[in-house]
Protein backbone atom coordinates (compact mmCIF):
# COMPACT_ATOMS: atom_id res chain seq x y z
CA UNK A 1 0.00 0.00 0.00
CA UNK A 2 1.30 3.40 -0.84
CA UNK A 3 1.47 5.79 2.01
CA UNK A 4 0.00 9.20 1.48
CA UNK A 5 2.64 11.79 0.70
CA UNK A 6 2.38 13.71 3.95
CA UNK A 7 3.15 10.61 5.97
CA UNK A 8 6.31 9.82 4.09
CA UNK A 9 7.70 13.34 4.04
CA UNK A 10 9.95 14.42 6.87
CA UNK A 11 8.77 17.43 8.80
CA UNK A 12 10.82 20.57 8.26
CA UNK A 13 11.87 20.31 11.89
CA UNK A 14 13.53 16.94 11.23
CA UNK A 15 15.11 18.19 8.03
CA UNK A 16 16.60 21.14 9.92
CA UNK A 17 17.89 18.93 12.69
CA UNK A 18 19.51 16.44 10.34
CA UNK A 19 21.10 19.15 8.23
CA UNK A 20 22.48 20.89 11.29
CA UNK A 21 23.98 17.73 12.73
CA UNK A 22 25.95 17.05 9.56
CA UNK A 23 26.86 20.71 9.12
CA UNK A 24 28.19 21.08 12.65
CA UNK A 25 30.40 18.01 12.35
CA UNK A 26 32.29 19.60 9.48
CA UNK A 27 32.19 23.07 11.10
CA UNK A 28 33.72 21.74 14.28
CA UNK A 29 36.70 20.11 12.57
CA UNK A 30 36.99 22.85 10.03
CA UNK A 31 36.93 20.50 7.07
CA UNK A 32 34.38 19.97 4.34
CA UNK A 33 31.82 17.16 4.27
CA UNK A 34 33.64 15.79 1.19
CA UNK A 35 36.88 15.38 3.13
CA UNK A 36 34.98 13.71 5.96
CA UNK A 37 33.43 11.35 3.46
CA UNK A 38 36.87 10.48 2.12
CA UNK A 39 38.09 9.74 5.64
CA UNK A 40 35.06 7.55 6.16
CA UNK A 41 35.69 5.61 2.96
CA UNK A 42 39.34 5.10 3.81
CA UNK A 43 38.52 3.82 7.28
CA UNK A 44 35.99 1.43 5.74
CA UNK A 45 38.58 0.20 3.26
CA UNK A 46 41.16 -0.56 5.95
CA UNK A 47 38.77 -2.33 8.29
CA UNK A 48 37.32 -4.34 5.39
CA UNK A 49 40.69 -6.08 5.09
CA UNK A 50 40.11 -7.72 8.43
CA UNK A 51 36.37 -8.16 8.77
CA UNK A 52 33.15 -7.76 6.89
CA UNK A 53 31.55 -4.48 7.71
CA UNK A 54 28.42 -2.62 6.76
CA UNK A 55 30.07 0.36 5.10
CA UNK A 56 26.72 1.81 4.08
CA UNK A 57 25.61 2.32 7.66
CA UNK A 58 28.84 3.35 9.26
CA UNK A 59 29.00 6.76 10.86
CA UNK A 60 31.86 9.01 11.75
CA UNK A 61 31.63 11.92 14.11
CA UNK A 62 34.01 14.51 15.39
CA UNK A 63 33.47 15.97 18.80
CA UNK A 64 35.49 18.71 20.38
CA UNK A 65 35.93 16.86 23.63
CA UNK A 66 34.27 13.97 25.39
CA UNK A 67 32.01 16.33 27.26
CA UNK A 68 31.93 19.97 26.43
CA UNK A 69 33.96 22.39 28.50
CA UNK A 70 35.55 19.73 30.66
CA UNK A 71 38.57 17.46 30.51
CA UNK A 72 40.85 17.39 27.54
CA UNK A 73 40.25 19.96 24.87
CA UNK A 74 41.47 17.84 21.98
CA UNK A 75 38.86 16.90 19.43
CA UNK A 76 38.27 13.22 18.88
CA UNK A 77 37.00 11.18 16.00
CA UNK A 78 34.39 8.54 16.69
CA UNK A 79 33.66 5.88 14.14
CA UNK A 80 30.65 3.65 14.48
CA UNK A 81 31.26 0.67 12.23
CA UNK A 82 28.61 -2.07 12.12
CA UNK A 83 30.27 -5.47 11.72
CA UNK A 84 28.47 -8.03 9.60
CA UNK A 85 30.90 -10.88 10.12
CA UNK A 86 33.91 -10.80 12.40
CA UNK A 87 35.87 -13.55 10.72
CA UNK A 88 34.91 -13.28 7.14
CA UNK A 89 37.14 -11.12 5.00
CA UNK A 90 35.44 -9.30 2.18
Amino acid at each position, binding site marked *: MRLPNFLKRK*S*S*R*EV*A*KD*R*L*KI*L*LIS*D*RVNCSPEVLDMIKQDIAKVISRYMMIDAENMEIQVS*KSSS*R*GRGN*KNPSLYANVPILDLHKIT
Partner: protein
Amino acid sequence: MSEVIVVTSGKGGVGKTTTTANVGTGLAAAGKKVVLIDTDIGLRNLDVVMGLENRIVYNLVDVVEGSCRVKQALIRDKRYAGLYLLPSAQTRDKTAVNESQMKKLIDHLRDQFDYILLDCPAGIEQGFKNAIAGADRALVVTTPEVSAIRDADRIIGLLEANAFEKIDLVINRMRYDMVKRGDMMTVEDVVDILSVGLIGVVPDDENVVIATNQGEPLVGNHTLAGRAYKNICMRILGQDIPYLDLDQSISFWTRVTGIFHKSQEGRV
Protein backbone atom coordinates in the same frame (compact mmCIF):
# COMPACT_ATOMS: atom_id res chain seq x y z
CA MET B 1 31.25 39.35 44.29
CA SER B 2 30.48 40.87 40.96
CA GLU B 3 29.76 38.82 37.90
CA VAL B 4 30.54 39.88 34.35
CA ILE B 5 28.18 38.38 31.77
CA VAL B 6 28.64 38.67 28.02
CA VAL B 7 25.53 38.31 25.85
CA THR B 8 26.55 36.95 22.47
CA SER B 9 25.20 34.99 19.52
CA GLY B 10 27.39 35.15 16.44
CA LYS B 11 24.50 35.85 14.13
CA GLY B 12 22.93 39.28 14.12
CA GLY B 13 19.28 39.98 14.81
CA VAL B 14 18.56 37.08 17.14
CA GLY B 15 17.96 39.25 20.20
CA LYS B 16 21.25 39.97 21.96
CA THR B 17 20.40 43.58 22.69
CA THR B 18 16.85 42.81 23.78
CA THR B 19 18.17 40.07 26.05
CA THR B 20 20.83 42.35 27.52
CA ALA B 21 18.28 45.10 28.18
CA ASN B 22 15.72 42.82 29.77
CA VAL B 23 18.09 40.67 31.81
CA GLY B 24 19.91 43.77 33.05
CA THR B 25 16.68 45.51 33.96
CA GLY B 26 15.37 42.38 35.65
CA LEU B 27 18.49 42.04 37.78
CA ALA B 28 18.22 45.69 38.77
CA ALA B 29 14.54 45.21 39.61
CA ALA B 30 15.65 42.36 41.87
CA GLY B 31 17.72 44.89 43.82
CA LYS B 32 21.12 44.35 42.23
CA LYS B 33 23.45 47.09 41.08
CA VAL B 34 23.82 46.59 37.35
CA VAL B 35 25.69 48.25 34.51
CA LEU B 36 24.95 47.48 30.87
CA ILE B 37 27.81 48.06 28.45
CA ASP B 38 27.12 48.32 24.74
CA THR B 39 30.27 47.01 23.05
CA ASP B 40 28.94 47.32 19.51
CA ILE B 41 31.03 50.30 18.46
CA GLY B 42 29.69 52.01 15.36
CA LEU B 43 26.26 50.37 15.57
CA ARG B 44 24.95 51.19 18.98
CA ASN B 45 21.45 50.03 19.83
CA LEU B 46 21.22 49.23 23.50
CA ASP B 47 20.55 52.91 24.26
CA VAL B 48 17.41 52.98 22.09
CA VAL B 49 16.12 49.66 23.37
CA MET B 50 16.52 51.02 26.89
CA GLY B 51 14.97 54.35 25.91
CA LEU B 52 18.01 56.29 27.08
CA GLU B 53 19.24 57.59 23.72
CA ASN B 54 18.61 61.23 24.56
CA ARG B 55 20.79 61.22 27.61
CA ILE B 56 24.12 60.23 26.09
CA VAL B 57 26.96 62.63 26.67
CA TYR B 58 30.07 60.44 26.73
CA ASN B 59 30.55 56.90 25.48
CA LEU B 60 32.68 53.79 25.81
CA VAL B 61 35.41 55.06 23.49
CA ASP B 62 35.65 58.35 25.42
CA VAL B 63 36.13 56.34 28.59
CA VAL B 64 38.86 54.02 27.30
CA GLU B 65 40.66 56.90 25.63
CA GLY B 66 40.57 58.85 28.86
CA SER B 67 38.55 61.77 27.48
CA CYS B 68 36.21 61.50 30.45
CA ARG B 69 35.86 59.67 33.73
CA VAL B 70 33.88 56.44 33.84
CA LYS B 71 31.33 58.05 36.12
CA GLN B 72 30.63 60.81 33.60
CA ALA B 73 29.78 58.34 30.86
CA LEU B 74 27.44 56.16 32.94
CA ILE B 75 23.77 56.96 32.37
CA ARG B 76 21.58 56.24 35.35
CA ASP B 77 18.21 54.73 34.49
CA LYS B 78 15.71 56.70 36.55
CA ARG B 79 13.10 53.93 36.43
CA TYR B 80 15.21 51.41 38.37
CA ALA B 81 17.52 52.13 41.26
CA GLY B 82 20.96 50.73 40.58
CA LEU B 83 20.67 50.42 36.79
CA TYR B 84 23.27 52.13 34.61
CA LEU B 85 24.14 52.15 30.91
CA LEU B 86 27.51 52.74 29.33
CA PRO B 87 26.66 53.50 25.70
CA SER B 88 28.81 52.71 22.73
CA ALA B 89 30.23 55.23 20.25
CA GLN B 90 28.28 55.65 17.04
CA THR B 91 30.89 57.42 14.95
CA ARG B 92 33.87 55.16 15.55
CA ASP B 93 34.70 51.61 14.55
CA LYS B 94 35.55 48.42 16.39
CA THR B 95 39.30 49.02 16.30
CA ALA B 96 38.89 52.04 18.61
CA VAL B 97 39.00 49.72 21.64
CA ASN B 98 41.21 46.73 22.38
CA GLU B 99 40.95 43.79 24.74
CA SER B 100 43.26 45.06 27.45
CA GLN B 101 41.38 48.39 27.59
CA MET B 102 38.12 46.49 28.04
CA LYS B 103 39.60 44.34 30.79
CA LYS B 104 40.89 47.42 32.59
CA LEU B 105 37.49 49.11 32.37
CA ILE B 106 35.67 46.03 33.64
CA ASP B 107 38.07 45.60 36.54
CA HIS B 108 37.39 49.20 37.47
CA LEU B 109 33.61 48.63 37.36
CA ARG B 110 33.72 45.36 39.32
CA ASP B 111 34.06 47.18 42.63
CA GLN B 112 30.94 49.23 42.05
CA PHE B 113 28.47 46.77 40.54
CA ASP B 114 26.97 43.35 41.26
CA TYR B 115 26.44 42.56 37.60
CA ILE B 116 28.17 43.86 34.50
CA LEU B 117 26.38 42.91 31.29
CA LEU B 118 28.15 43.22 27.96
CA ASP B 119 26.09 43.46 24.79
CA CYS B 120 28.30 41.85 22.17
CA PRO B 121 28.25 42.80 18.49
CA ALA B 122 27.43 40.20 15.85
CA GLY B 123 30.37 38.42 14.27
CA ILE B 124 33.59 36.96 15.61
CA GLU B 125 35.99 39.83 14.93
CA GLN B 126 37.56 42.43 17.21
CA GLY B 127 34.23 43.51 18.70
CA PHE B 128 33.53 39.97 19.86
CA LYS B 129 37.04 39.61 21.26
CA ASN B 130 36.64 42.86 23.18
CA ALA B 131 33.29 41.83 24.59
CA ILE B 132 34.46 38.45 25.89
CA ALA B 133 37.84 39.69 27.12
CA GLY B 134 36.78 40.55 30.66
CA ALA B 135 33.73 38.34 31.05
CA ASP B 136 33.23 35.53 33.59
CA ARG B 137 30.27 33.86 31.98
CA ALA B 138 28.34 33.94 28.73
CA LEU B 139 24.73 33.89 27.65
CA VAL B 140 24.53 32.58 24.10
CA VAL B 141 21.33 33.73 22.40
CA THR B 142 19.96 31.74 19.50
CA THR B 143 16.68 31.23 17.67
CA PRO B 144 15.41 27.80 16.62
CA GLU B 145 16.71 28.31 13.08
CA VAL B 146 19.53 26.56 11.25
CA SER B 147 21.61 29.67 10.58
CA ALA B 148 21.41 31.00 14.13
CA ILE B 149 22.21 27.61 15.65
CA ARG B 150 25.19 27.12 13.38
CA ASP B 151 26.61 30.48 14.42
CA ALA B 152 25.85 29.78 18.07
CA ASP B 153 27.84 26.54 17.81
CA ARG B 154 30.80 28.46 16.41
CA ILE B 155 30.55 31.00 19.21
CA ILE B 156 30.36 28.28 21.86
CA GLY B 157 33.51 26.74 20.36
CA LEU B 158 35.31 30.07 20.57
CA LEU B 159 34.14 30.65 24.14
CA GLU B 160 35.38 27.22 25.14
CA ALA B 161 38.70 27.92 23.45
CA ASN B 162 38.87 31.03 25.65
CA ALA B 163 38.38 28.91 28.76
CA PHE B 164 34.79 29.96 29.51
CA GLU B 165 33.30 27.58 32.00
CA LYS B 166 29.84 29.06 32.39
CA ILE B 167 28.08 29.10 29.07
CA ASP B 168 24.30 29.19 29.10
CA LEU B 169 21.86 29.06 26.25
CA VAL B 170 18.90 31.39 25.70
CA ILE B 171 16.51 30.23 22.99
CA ASN B 172 14.67 33.23 21.65
CA ARG B 173 11.59 33.61 19.43
CA MET B 174 10.24 30.16 20.12
CA ARG B 175 6.95 29.52 18.34
CA TYR B 176 5.06 26.70 19.94
CA ASP B 177 2.39 26.67 17.27
CA MET B 178 5.07 25.87 14.70
CA VAL B 179 6.63 23.25 16.98
CA LYS B 180 3.23 21.57 17.24
CA ARG B 181 3.00 21.43 13.46
CA GLY B 182 6.49 19.93 13.24
CA ASP B 183 7.81 23.01 11.49
CA MET B 184 10.19 24.26 14.16
CA MET B 185 12.93 22.57 16.13
CA THR B 186 11.98 21.96 19.73
CA VAL B 187 13.84 23.31 22.77
CA GLU B 188 15.22 19.79 23.30
CA ASP B 189 16.45 19.61 19.69
CA VAL B 190 18.40 22.85 20.04
CA VAL B 191 19.87 21.94 23.44
CA ASP B 192 20.80 18.50 22.11
CA ILE B 193 22.57 19.91 19.06
CA LEU B 194 24.49 22.61 20.94
CA SER B 195 25.08 20.54 24.10
CA VAL B 196 25.24 23.45 26.54
CA GLY B 197 23.02 24.17 29.51
CA LEU B 198 19.73 25.96 28.95
CA ILE B 199 18.93 29.05 31.03
CA GLY B 200 15.76 30.25 29.35
CA VAL B 201 13.30 30.09 26.51
CA VAL B 202 11.67 33.29 25.28
CA PRO B 203 8.56 32.83 23.18
CA ASP B 204 8.07 34.85 20.03
CA ASP B 205 5.99 37.69 21.40
CA GLU B 206 4.86 40.82 19.60
CA ASN B 207 5.07 42.67 22.91
CA VAL B 208 8.85 42.68 22.46
CA VAL B 209 8.43 44.89 19.38
CA ILE B 210 6.00 47.11 21.24
CA ALA B 211 8.36 47.43 24.20
CA THR B 212 11.27 48.27 21.89
CA ASN B 213 9.12 50.89 20.15
CA GLN B 214 8.54 52.49 23.52
CA GLY B 215 12.09 52.08 24.79
CA GLU B 216 10.85 50.24 27.85
CA PRO B 217 12.14 46.77 28.79
CA LEU B 218 9.26 44.35 29.37
CA VAL B 219 10.93 42.08 31.91
CA GLY B 220 8.67 41.17 34.80
CA ASN B 221 5.40 42.36 33.28
CA HIS B 222 2.46 40.10 32.47
CA THR B 223 3.52 39.35 28.88
CA LEU B 224 4.96 35.96 28.05
CA ALA B 225 8.31 37.40 27.03
CA GLY B 226 8.32 39.53 30.18
CA ARG B 227 7.80 36.46 32.32
CA ALA B 228 10.40 34.48 30.38
CA TYR B 229 13.03 37.19 30.90
CA LYS B 230 12.20 37.41 34.58
CA ASN B 231 12.72 33.66 34.89
CA ILE B 232 16.13 34.00 33.21
CA CYS B 233 17.08 36.69 35.75
CA MET B 234 16.02 34.50 38.64
CA ARG B 235 18.07 31.61 37.25
CA ILE B 236 21.09 33.89 36.91
CA LEU B 237 20.59 34.80 40.56
CA GLY B 238 20.91 31.10 41.33
CA GLN B 239 17.27 30.22 41.89
CA ASP B 240 15.85 27.01 40.59
CA ILE B 241 12.92 28.23 38.54
CA PRO B 242 10.88 25.57 36.77
CA TYR B 243 10.00 26.03 33.14
CA LEU B 244 6.40 27.17 33.05
CA ASP B 245 4.02 25.07 31.09
CA LEU B 246 2.05 27.78 29.37
CA ASP B 247 -0.60 25.42 28.14
CA GLN B 248 -1.68 25.17 31.75
CA SER B 249 -0.86 28.66 32.88
CA ILE B 250 -3.22 30.25 30.40
CA SER B 251 -6.47 30.43 32.29
CA PHE B 252 -9.66 28.84 31.16
CA TRP B 253 -11.28 32.21 30.63
CA THR B 254 -8.55 33.53 28.32
CA ARG B 255 -8.77 30.31 26.38
CA VAL B 256 -12.51 30.79 25.98
CA THR B 257 -12.26 34.41 24.98
CA GLY B 258 -9.33 33.64 22.72
CA ILE B 259 -7.50 36.79 23.77
CA PHE B 260 -4.22 34.95 23.70
CA HIS B 261 -2.63 34.41 20.37
CA LYS B 262 -1.96 30.80 19.43
CA SER B 263 1.80 31.28 19.56
CA GLN B 264 1.56 32.10 23.25
CA GLU B 265 1.49 28.47 24.22
CA GLY B 266 4.43 26.48 25.48
CA ARG B 267 7.00 27.01 28.16
CA VAL B 268 9.14 29.94 29.15
